[in-house]
């Protein structure tokens, strides 16, 4: 299973709609970095609205993706994290402190634009 990555101007849009298993998550990490490299995108929005479980492993993969993309010059914003998921992450002790977030795709794009303009 592969997660589709869409390109829009110099942004990449990703909507994760499957229950992430470890393999899919790792492959997604590779695919996204590859795509950033090829397209030269400066911003990425990863929408997690339909994800109803993030455990510490997936959280680590997502956090790593953000840091790695940063290294490659692309800002990543995570959007649409569900309340139940957020609370579970906090209980787990996973705070994802250096990961930018936004309520939804729209605000994620606004946030990216703001950050890139600065």
């Amino acid at each position, binding site marked *: 299973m592969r997660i589709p990555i869409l390109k829009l101007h110099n942004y990449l849009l990703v909507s994760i709609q499957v229950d992430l298993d470890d393999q899919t998550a790792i492959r997604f990490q590779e695919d996204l970095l590859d795509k950033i490299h090829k397209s030269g995108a400066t911003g990425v929005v990863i929408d997690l609205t339909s994800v109803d479980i993030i455990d510490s492993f997936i959280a680590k993969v997502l956090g790593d993706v953000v840091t790695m993309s940063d290294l490659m010059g692309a800002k990543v914003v*995570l959007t649409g994290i569900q*309340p139940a998921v957020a609370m579970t992450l906090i209980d787990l002790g996973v705070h994802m402190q250096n990961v930018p977030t936004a*309520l939804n795709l729209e*605000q994620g794009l606004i946030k990216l634009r703001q950050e890139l303009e600065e």
Partner: protein
Amino acid sequence: MPEVLRRIVLEHSDEVAAKWLKEIAEKRKGDYTSSISTELYESTNREFVNNIFASIDHPDEIAKLDAFAERIINLGWPLSYITDGLQSFRRVTIDFILTESSSVETVEFSKILTVVDDWVEPIIKQLVNQYSGNWEHTVSLQRLALQELSAPLIPVMENITIMPLIGTIDTERAKQIMENLLEGVMKHNSEVVLMDITGVPVVDTMVAHHIIQAAEAVRLIGATCILVGIRPEIAQTIVNLGIDLSNFPTKSSLRKGFQSALEITNREIVNLDNSTNDMTDILDSLK
């Protein structure tokens, strides 16, 4: 109960009761019950002692005792009225039986003690159970009332929401508050939430921990949480306890918090009523 003892007790029930009433009346001086009218007190005492004697022949008849306990509870009399009363009743009865019976051998003595205990203990047990059952009921009602007090979420403006917190926060409530908060943020699509802790009396490490967790969860779903209503003493305790709140914005008052909420959402308040201009006009005209 052995027939001999039973006869002694029942035949002299009036005397025992009288002695007990006297002792109870003595005790009452300077007691919690001193505010109760003498009439009510005495009639209740009499009912009490009658119930005790009735239980000799009908130890299984608990309905009467239950009704009595319920009345005492409704009157708001303390549990110690019942326990003290029965304690002295036991003493009075044993005293009485000992003076009545001719032989005071050790064996006999302990037998009397056991018999009277067997008589009085079940009554104490039953009444205390009634009392504690009543308390548990009250406690569960109060817990429910506290849950209903959970924090409401008020959308004041597009993208800005306020959650006033009132009262003591424990772990259970904190979880509920967090759920309300996050669901509300999603529902109202709020970019900024102002969490107002003006109404929280004490902020200790645990409360601060819950607040920080809530703020971090809010950040995860993509909004900003501003903590407002930090009173001087709260600021002092937070620093003295070594709690680190530097990672998210705090403001002393709701007004200041609202101001920064407006800034975050790229808005500002414009004064339509230009009274300040009028003032300068007046001053200018005086020149």
